[in-house]
Each structure stands twice: as structure tokens, then as C-alpha cells.
């Protein structure tokens, strides 16, 4: 993919509370700042972290610190840890050019458990995301994480996929350095493995 030409670049990361989207926004924010970008991040904390729909707005500028929320319809790239949440973000920030990257591993809502709501048909959901995106990428990062023995690294696999797309001004080396600086040695190693799997998944043509 080509680098996004935007001022600012609007990246949205979404998911379900507890999936770890905040770690991703922090790693990205710190790495970009080191490269001289002015980054603003707006995100959901507090009660929504208890299983609710969460999102981080990351706004990347070379000129000024923007406000932490993206205008409606103005996302360049949506990375989502859950497919329903991709659709939710598309409804708010989507446009015909937007690229989406989705961990296609549905997390049922509690209203679905109680039969109050119906989780959308998976194929229909995928189709809708595809239709509403300029380009849509799907992978099952949760399955990859379980295979690696730890579902907690799903988010970092998605980070790898994001880096693999090469759409924001960050390289693999930038994020690797940030991971090494942010974690203890053993946790860094696990996260670097996760990152590599995400990058490889994109390279293999997800």
C-alpha cells in the first residue's frame, strides 16, 4: 500500500474494552513523536473499558497539534480488533477511500447472549465492511495469538499488520524499538514475535 497523504492523517483504532487498543495507540504515538510528528490521541477510558465499544483517534500532523477527535467521515485508516467495531467506526468516520484492517473474530455482545440482539451474519458483515471501505483487509489475529499460546497479544499482531500495510510513517524498526523500550525483556520478545506474525500475514496477502 502507499503512504497516506493527509494533513492530518486520521487513524482510528477500535475494539472491545479489554482487547488492548490503548497499548497500540501509545506505541504509535510515542514512535511518531520521536520522528518529529505532532500527534494527538483521543480515546475511550473508564467505564467503556469494561467490555464496551472502545476507540482511539490518532491524528498525525507535521504542522500543528489537532484536537483529539476526528471529524465525521474523515478517517484514512481504521484498524479494528473486532469486526462489528469496524462497522461502527465506518458509520462514523468512513468514506469511499478509507482503508480498513479487521481482526475478523466476532466478540458477541451481552445483548446477543441474552437473545435481545442478533449478531449480524458473518458473511454479510464482511461484505458490508468491504463495500464501505476503499480497501478492506481481514485476518484472524486472535486465532494466530491462541496458536502462539496467548490471546493477549492479538493487539500486537494487529499492530504488525498495520505496519505491514506501510500506510503510516512508521517502520518495523521504529515499533520494534518502542516495544523494546516499553516492556521487560521476556514480554518484549513475545510482543516482537506477535509483531512479526502480523507483518508476515500482510506480506502473505491476507
Amino acid at each position, binding site marked *: 500500500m502507499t503512504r497516506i497523504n493527509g494533513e492530518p492523517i486520521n487513524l482510528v483504532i477500535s475494539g472491545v*474494552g*479489554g482487547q488492548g487498543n490503548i497499548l497500540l495507540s*501509545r506505541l504509535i*504515538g*510515542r514512535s511518531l*513523536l520521536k520522528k518529529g510528528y*505532532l*500527534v*494527538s*490521541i483521543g*480515546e*475511550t*477510558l*473508564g*467505564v*467503556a473499558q*469494561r*467490555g*464496551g*465499544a472502545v476507540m482511539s483517534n490518532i491524528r498525525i500532523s507535521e504542522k*500543528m*497539534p*489537532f*484536537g*483529539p*477527535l*476526528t*471529524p*465525521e467521515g474523515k478517517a484514512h485508516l481504521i484498524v479494528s480488533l473486532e469486526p*462489528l*467495531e469496524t*462497522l*461502527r467506526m*465506518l*458509520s462514523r468516520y*468512513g*468514506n*469511499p477511500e478509507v482503508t480498513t484492517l479487521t481482526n475478523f*473474530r466476532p*466478540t*458477541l*455482545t*451481552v*445483548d446477543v*447472549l*441474552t*437473545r435481545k*440482539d*442478533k*449478531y*449480524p451474519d458473518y458473511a*454479510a*458483515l464482511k461484505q*458490508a465492511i468491504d463495500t*464501505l471501505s476503499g480497501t478492506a483487509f481481514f485476518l484472524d489475529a486472535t486465532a494466530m*495469538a*491462541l496458536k502462539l499460546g496467548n*490471546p493477549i497479544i*492479538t493487539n500486537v499482531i494487529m499492530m504488525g499488520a498495520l505496519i505491514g500495510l506501510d500506510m503510516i510513517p512508521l517502520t518495523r524498526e521504529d515499533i520494534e524499538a518502542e516495544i523494546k523500550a*516499553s516492556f521487560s525483556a521476556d514480554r518484549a520478545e513475545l510482543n516482537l514475535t506477535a509483531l512479526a506474525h502480523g507483518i508476515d500475514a500482510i506480506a502473505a496477502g491476507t
Partner: protein
Amino acid sequence: MSTIAGTTTGTREMMMGNEAIARGALEAGVQFVTGYPGTPSSEIVETVARSARETGVYVEWSINEKVAAEVAAAASFAGLRTLTAMKTAGFNVALDFLAHLGYSGLGKHGGSMVVVVCDDPEGHSSGDEADSRWFAQTEGAPLLEPDSPQEAKEMTTWAFELSEQFNCYVMVRSYTRLSLASGPVTLGRIPEIGKKAQFDTSQETISPYMPKPSHVRQHQRLASIRPLFERSRFNWYQGPEKPELLIICSGIGTRYSLEAVGALGLEKSVGILKLGTLWPFPTKLVAEHLARTRRVLMVEEVDPFLESHAKILAFDSPAVSKDLKIYGKDSGHIPAEGELNPSIVMKGLAELFGLDYTIREADYERKISTAVDKLLINRGVAWCPGCPHRASFWAVKQAIRKDGRDGFPTGDIGCYTLDVYPSGSQQIKALHAMGSGVGLASGFGKLAQFGLEQPVVAICGDSTFFHASIPGLINAVRNRANMVLVLLDNSATAMTGFQPHPGTETDILGEAAPVISTEAICRSIGCHVEVSDPFDIKGTTAKLLRLMKEDGTKVMIMRRICELVRMKEERTFPFKVWIDAEKCRGEKCSFCTRFFKCPALPWDRETGKAVIDEATCVGCGVCVEICPPGAIFREVTA
């Protein structure tokens, strides 16, 4: 990882607004910091605490916000630089003291005191979206509102200087999209802390009495601050000499206004007057700008605070055009409720200029609408897998049902508040402020003489119990109210980030601290107290049922550590849990999924049978107890 105090001067770091406020305090030489946790304010105190060992700053989580303000004020009376931080709901608690402190000032040799209040526009994590700025006016406190993490740091540092210079506390108003947002912050120097505490006993009593002369002094103080605010660098103007339209904004409204003007290409027609010093209102500065235009749009979160003052000022200013129109919340160009975003400002601005503002092409918009209507469902919040509250409320429900008198719980503020959501057991029938559950139950418990036969169960958490529930409980005992207090003790202030409280073994620095026993308090005031592990659902239900049938004020402590805290400490799964698909009755039963509602216990769409979600199950094993056909099994892990 290095702490916030360990970073190098002059470097630029990504910081949350709350971290920037903490850093600003450290750069002002803050010595003493207090607060009570509450989203979106908690990280201010926590950030200072993380560096407390290297900086020597005293930090405490106080029992509630009023005490936090009092503790901080005492340190300022003794000459120290102090800060207290709280969310708006807690600010209401602190106001009882702060209202009087606004009159009295900080004493003869006072240091400085900064009060940071974090509003929650949209009420993301609150029961209200109240605008605290009005209270600065009521209490006579100077008020600053930053627009970014960088400015939050600089303003906080300046707030200490102001406080020291004018001998009063200074209020810094933050809000969710600053406190919890992150942005670049350039770091300054952290000074050595030198000042010793000393209280001057020769001075007059520090007190608002007599109120009238104190009020006069307060007004004089504000009058002497105003000229400083008129020329503060935190207020600035950008735009043409005589703008066709003037935006007056503060806080996050500034960032969105800058973006909106740029996006609509209105740089040559629209001027932006950004205000950072809000009270005392910089009247001269604003009047000058009002005189140069005929149309004004006010952009602020949440209430029309600046808008009201701008309108009053326009009425009083002879140089202002008679045709001047001030638009904003009153005119409906900016919504009167909820948080701002750039699109809101773009829409309001476009309307005033008669411009077309469409977010997306009609064709794409139609596709979005179709997908949303057909596929998008709400994702409500829920208790985590393994959360003790799910089991506790299950027991409460069983006990109320078995009691058979149509009993009901009153609720309180914490993770257990989630009971009112569809993901909870939806039993709580009244829910307000910290401690209100007990106060309400104390009232319901006195209604027998008027014919009320329903038993009432108040539910509160451990941190909430210490914060505000004790007076209500004493009130109930003293007035012989019939009620049960169910105290959900998960050994943390869980909702706001697992902070310690007077019942936990360590303090904010992780050091051993005296533990105050909830049982001992309840027993000492005369309550019959029972303690139970909520994961023993049957035993807990039976105990609660017995208490509900007794006369008087009783307490049932349901004790089990927050699952997120336990998992972080132990990193173990107590049980391996599985479902026997043969025994599961699937859709015909679906009792576990419909009523127990654990996110880690969904069901298979093809077979209709319950399944364990291996990615989220923490192995608490409680679901084994509630499965009617006994199809769920658990085995202790090695």
C-alpha cells in the same frame, strides 16, 4: 520504565492531559498532592505518586474529595505548594469546604493550592456532564481552562504562582478530551523542593467568618487578578482585524475551531479569540473584540458559561454594535448537551455562512444507513469474566425472590453500577451519588408505618463505603431503619483503576498502611454483620435471606478480590471449565446465557449449545453452580 520526573528537560514526550497536569505541578515545585479516584481525573495523582520516591512529594488517596481538599489546604496554610484533583462529581463533595476556603484564603503565610476539576462532557464515565466552571464564579476562585496537554502543563505551573501571589486557591478545569487525550508536551525543569512547613500561630483564625467582609476581600482579590488575565498569554486572537464573524472559544473548542475554520476555508472572514483565563472574566479583552465584529459564535464545552458572560458584557459595552448577534448554545448553532467535536463546529459555522456542509456523498451515506440498519448493534458494557459482582448480584436476586415480599436494591457508584445495564441483573431501582444507596435505603427502611412491606437492600462497594456510606449507615442504625447493606468488598477502587483505599493493605506508594476493617466499623455502630464469599452462591444467598428477615440495620459483606487485580497478581486460571454438549439443553434452556450473562460463556450459532470462549474465560468456575442440567464442569488446574 522511567517515571515522569526522570525525564530530561527540553525533550518532548507524548503525555496524557492528566500526566501533563502532574508534570506542570512538579515543575512548579509541588510538595503535597491529594485526591480521590474518579474518571477522568485519576491519573493526575497516580502520576505524581509514581515519581514520589525521587521527588519527595507527599501523595495520598484521601477518603473522599472533601477531606482531600482539607488535607491539601492544611499543607498550604503551613506554606507548602499543594494540589488536589478530582472529577466533577467529587468536586460537589469538596465544595462544602472549598466554598468557605474561597472566602477565607490561605492564611497569613500561606503557600499555594491548585484545585484540578475534571469534567466529563457526554458523561462517558459519569452520572452527569455538569460544567464545573460556574462554581469558580460562585466560590470566587480564579479559573483556568487549557486547550491541550502542553497548555495544561504550563497553566498548572502558572496556577501555583497565581495562588501564592493572591493567597487563594486556583481552579484548573480539565475535561475528558484533555485529561484522557494525549499529545506532545515539552518538558521544563523540576526545581529542588526546599520550603519547610511552618504554621504561623500569631495570625488570625483562617476562616470565612465574618462572611460579609470576607466576601468583600474576595471580590477585591478577583478585581486585582483581572488585569493580569486581560493580558495573559493563555488568551490570544488569530484572524483578520475586523472579522466577519468572531469565534470565542475555550478548552477543546479552540482546537476544533481552528480545524473548522481551516476546513471551510474561512481564514479571511473568521477570527478566533481563545480564552484560557475564564474567571475573573477578561472583560476588557473580550469587549475590544466584540466591538470589531457583528457576529459571534461561542464554542465551549458544556454549558454556555462564556456565552452568558459575553452577552452580559455586550449589554454593558457602549462600543459594541447594536446589531451584534451572539450565537452558540442558546441559538442552537452548537448543541447544548454532550461533548464537542470538529464536525459540530463545522456545521455551526457553515450554517452561519450559508455554506453547504455535507459529511459524505449521498450514495455512500445511503450505503452506510443500510448497513447500520441491517447489521449494527449496540455493544453495552459488562462485568468482566470472573467478576465477583456477577455472582453477588445473582445471590441478591435469589434472596429477594425467595423472600417473596417484592424487595429491591438501591445502588451506588462503582463497577457494580453496571447492574443497571442490560448486561447486569437489572435489579437496582434507584442510583445516584457515592453513598446515596445507603441513605436512600435508610429512608425506605422507615416506611413500614406508612404501609411499605417491601424489604430494601442497599448495595455499595468497599471504597464507596469509606467515601460516603458510613454517615448513612449510622443514620439508619440510629433511627432504627430496617435495611440490609450489601457491601461488595473486592479490595480495590476497581472502576477507576484499582486504587487502594482505607480497607486495603497498602497505600498509593505500595507501602504497608493501617487497614481499617469494614466489619469492625459496622459492628461498632451496632449492625449485625455477616461475611460471605460470593462465589459460594448458595451459602451467600441463604445468609442474605436470613438478614432480610431480621429487624434493624444489618450488613452483609460479600468479599472476593477484583478478578482483574487477581489475574494481574497471580496470572493463573483457578479452574479449567468445559461444557458437556450432550448434557447442555441448548436453546430449550439457554438459562446461563440469558440470565448469568458472562461474556466468556456464549453459545454456538449452529448447535445452540453453550460454549466456553477460550480467549476470554478466566476459569472462575462459577457458571458450574448456575447451570440447571449440570452440563458445565470444572477441574482445579495444577
